[in-house]
């Protein structure tokens, strides 16, 4: 049996292939915009004719067409199926986006989330008719608090950054309650995700950056210099630290960091984006953490959905728990109840209703399926897979730091030096190999960063094929094939897109051709 397959190369794609009249290329179907195919009078929904009774809209009725195109059901189906086929997806192949945790999304979780006792329950229907939904909140809280060894959790934050806001607002509320309103400085490592400084500022804090050392961790000398001798009455409100950090490394001085911050009268906000490297092996509560958000869409596999919805429940320490936002669920003698109105300690409400219930059911289903043993195994496999990739590529690529990593392997672009190939080109060439690129140019502390997170969902065979591709690309770059990298991708539904033009002259919506012509005149 022939196993090598027919070689493909960019030359073949650039050859003088025939143009099709349709614009489609076999399975790659051309897609027009709904505004180009639909018409306002067509509809894919059959609704009964209104009886035409007297309106009670007053003088505010909308007149004329809105301009929304309609499609019949088969046209709708075809439009979105065609669009879907232009997306890469976890279900299609390796999606090694560092810090994003693209793991398998079990379909059981989709099924339970759609059960009518959760999916078709109104957030304000009487609590005695929503007991099953409230029980999910309660059970999920128990799992999250137990995994973290923390005494409280606020479920409502709707994404990771919203969870950061929750934790930092709780810290601010506590400081204000203690008459410590002068504490407004927050330390943030320079390797932090951009949401951390943005969140601190949104909470009215100032940001003070702390440098990294040559091992990719917090520079403890710099930190001690900043904090030593300040005392509990200092202006330090706290620290926002990701652990494992954005370089994929465990902050081995984390307990001392927590002690230094607490001695300066500050609180320890841990960005839990990478909690998936710890679940079942390390509990944040044992590290001195005061608040940490958990990305249910990363660690507990609620689907990323092309950019959300996420969910960012935030665990809180004893010092902060009284300041948690409303609403939250409590167990009473007649079943579960909701506390929906803030007392004088709570920092208030973050959103309408109870957070992202649809993510709670999915995450809990994921956790219960794994159990305490499976969650620990998943963590270990994720760390094992990342280290396997790092070890298998370290002779042809350049790991940013020495030693083993946690759940993601960070490379810099030293191995591309003098090749003319940049991290961006390397990423685009991965697309042609059939892989989604790794996270690129993040974290900022590493030049031309390439952050690879395979997750526990990849088999050894899949990893071996991925490693083979990556080695081949690294060797091609070094062999001087810069031009093919600059052209990449050539096999994707689109070639490289002009992002500069998009930003300089933003076209953010479709406009009828006649109006476009008028605007140009």
């Amino acid at each position, binding site marked *: 049996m022939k196993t090598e397959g027919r070689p493909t190369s960019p030359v073949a794609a650039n050859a003088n292939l025939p143009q099709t009249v349709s614009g489609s290329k076999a399975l790659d179907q051309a897609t027009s915009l*709904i*505004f180009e195919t639909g*018409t306002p009078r067509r*509809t*894919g929904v059959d*609704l*009964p004719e*209104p009886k035409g009774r007297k*309106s009670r*809209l*007053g003088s505010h009725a*909308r007149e004329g067409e809105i301009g*929304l195109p309609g499609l019949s059901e088969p046209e*709708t*189906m075809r439009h979105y199926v065609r669009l*879907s086929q232009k*997306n*890469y997806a976890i*279900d299609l192949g390796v999606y090694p986006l560092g810090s994003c945790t*693209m793991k*398998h*999304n079990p379909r059981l979780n989709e*099924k339970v989330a*759609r059960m*009518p006792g*959760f999916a*078709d*329950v*109104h*957030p304000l229907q009487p609590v*005695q008719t929503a007991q*099953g939904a409230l029980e999910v909140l309660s059970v999920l809280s128990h799992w999250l608090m137990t995994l973290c060894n923390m005494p409280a959790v606020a479920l409502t934050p709707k994404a990771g950054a*919203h969870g*950061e806001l929750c934790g930092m*607002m709780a810290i601010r509320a506590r400081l204000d309650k203690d008459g410590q309103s002068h504490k407004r400085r927050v330390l943030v490592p320079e390797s932090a995700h951009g949401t951390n400084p*943005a969140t601190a*500022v*949104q909470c009215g804090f100032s940001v003070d950056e702390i440098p990294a050392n040559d091992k990719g961790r917090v520079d403890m000398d710099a930190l001690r210099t900043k904090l030593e001798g300040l005392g509990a009455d200092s202006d330090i409100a706290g620290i926002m630290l990701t652990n494992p950090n954005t370089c994929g490394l465990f902050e081995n001085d984390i307990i001392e960091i927590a002690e230094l911050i607490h001695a300066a009268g500050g609180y320890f906000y841990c960005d839990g984006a990478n909690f998936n490297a710890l679940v079942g092996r*390390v509990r944040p509560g044992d590290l001195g953490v005061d608040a940490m958000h958990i990305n249910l869409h990363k660690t507990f596999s609620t*689907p990323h*959905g092309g*950019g*959300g*919805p996420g969910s960012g429940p935030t665990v809180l320490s004893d010092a902060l728990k009284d300041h948690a936002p409303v609403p939250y669920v409590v167990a009473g003698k007649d079943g579960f109840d909701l506390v929906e*109105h803030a007392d004088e300690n709570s*920092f*208030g409400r*973050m*959103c*309408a209703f109870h957070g992202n219930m649809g993510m709670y059911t999915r995450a809990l289903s994921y956790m219960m*399926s*794994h*159990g*305490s043993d*499976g969650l620990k195994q998943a963590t270990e496999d994720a760390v094992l897979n990342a280290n396997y990739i790092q070890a298998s590529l370290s002779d042809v690529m350049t790991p940013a730091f020495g030693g083993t990593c946690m759940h993601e392997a960070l490379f810099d672009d030293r191995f591309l030096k003098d090749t003319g190939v940049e991290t961006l080109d390397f990423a685009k060439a991965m697309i042609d190999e059939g892989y989604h690129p790794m996270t690129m140019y993040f974290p900022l502390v590493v030049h031309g960063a390439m952050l690879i997170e395979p997750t*526990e969902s990849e088999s050894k065979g899949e990893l071996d094929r991925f490693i083979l591709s990556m080695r081949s690309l690294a060797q091609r770059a070094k062999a001087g094939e810069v031009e093919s990298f600059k052209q990449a*991708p050539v096999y994707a539904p689109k070639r490289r897109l002009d992002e500069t033009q*998009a*930003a300089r002259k*933003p076209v953010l919506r479709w406009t009828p051709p006649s109006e476009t012509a008028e605007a140009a005149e």
Partner: protein
Amino acid sequence: MRYLPLNNNDRAQMLDVIGVDNIDALFEDVPKSARLKGLIDLPKHQSEQAVERFFQRLSNKSTPAGSVPFFCGAGAYKHHIPATVDHLIQRSEFLTAYTPYQPEVSQGTLQALFEFQTQVALLTGMEVANASMYDGSTACAEAVVMAHRVARGKKSKAILASGLHPHYAAATQTLASTLNIQIDSQGAQIGVDADVIDRIDNDTACVVVQSPNVFGEIVDLRPIAEKAHAHKALLIAVFTEPVALAAIESPGAQGADIVVGEGQGLGVGLAFGGPHVGLFACRQKLVRQMPGRVCGETVDANGERGFVLTLSTREQHIRREKATSNICTNSGLCCLAFTIHMSLLGDAGIQRLAALNHEKACELADLIDGVDGASVENETFFNEFTVRLNRPAAEVVDAMVKKGVIAGVPLSRLAPEADPNLLLVCATETSSDEDIAAFETALKEVLS
């Protein structure tokens, strides 16, 4: 464990390649005192069947909206969702994709976002829209913060109208509390939205008005916009029911500068309050102050039309502490559901859907007005309105639950200081004639 492909043989081989003896060696950076021994005290792994049974048992403990005559609105609305919508959003390529940061392999998500932004702009009567926010309430809060950015710190006040959903007001208050934004709010009161006109002054950065408001009343935005603009303040128009915008004059046509609201009513289920989808639209001239992701049109290296996320210089991953917002996600799959439902409806469909909603609400309102001890407070409404009862609404709702009817939301549930006798009632195209009759019968029995 069914989700984990590695077996022990694989693991041993991989440890060998890494050059360590066992998995513990990869966790050596963890301080000794924090290394867990053994398993955490939680149940072990379970079969798919066992987990499904657990959730089925819990699901059975709630009363789904579709199983009884159901009349709750107040920010979340029960509508029929075509089967096509749920099928399409579960396609692997949409469901299991990340944010479209690599546009060459994300054109599906990106084009859907571009179409979504256009639909939202048309529906709200605005020039541009972003790729969605967490929900309506957080969109409202972000709009207020945006208005203060536009005012460059020269104006401190944000005026909230008394008909703004109390949860929206609270979420806005929370976000504003740390940013030196003075929130001028007088709590939830019926029929006095126009009072904001007298409160607008030169220190006002924005005025926030919901229409239809939380009581269901449709508010004339024009005089408010006029006064706001005379004082160089922005009018932020809010809605909680997107279907209403097909029936009433768009906020953009009435002079709003920013329009925010909840999109759940189209394509997205109740889900006990989330995930939902926040809609955010504004005038073209304000676009660089707009928070959240935005998708734009461009061309690829072959000159073909394509789409990318753009204007990212506003965002946290570039601007860090100078970003317009800390938001780093949208409500991707929910905005996909919204745009698919909207594509199915089209102009004709959504206008008819709106007309049906309004008729059902009118029928219900007429019947309630005929019940002793109950009266409809509204002069105008779309598909929800406020009923004044002769006793606390929470008691009436509980008594009606016992008769198999979920009657609505007591205003006191949203605002404890508000009049306890007010009940917010909503009817949609899903309310059958039998449901409406059951409401009337149960209400008569409870009030008699």
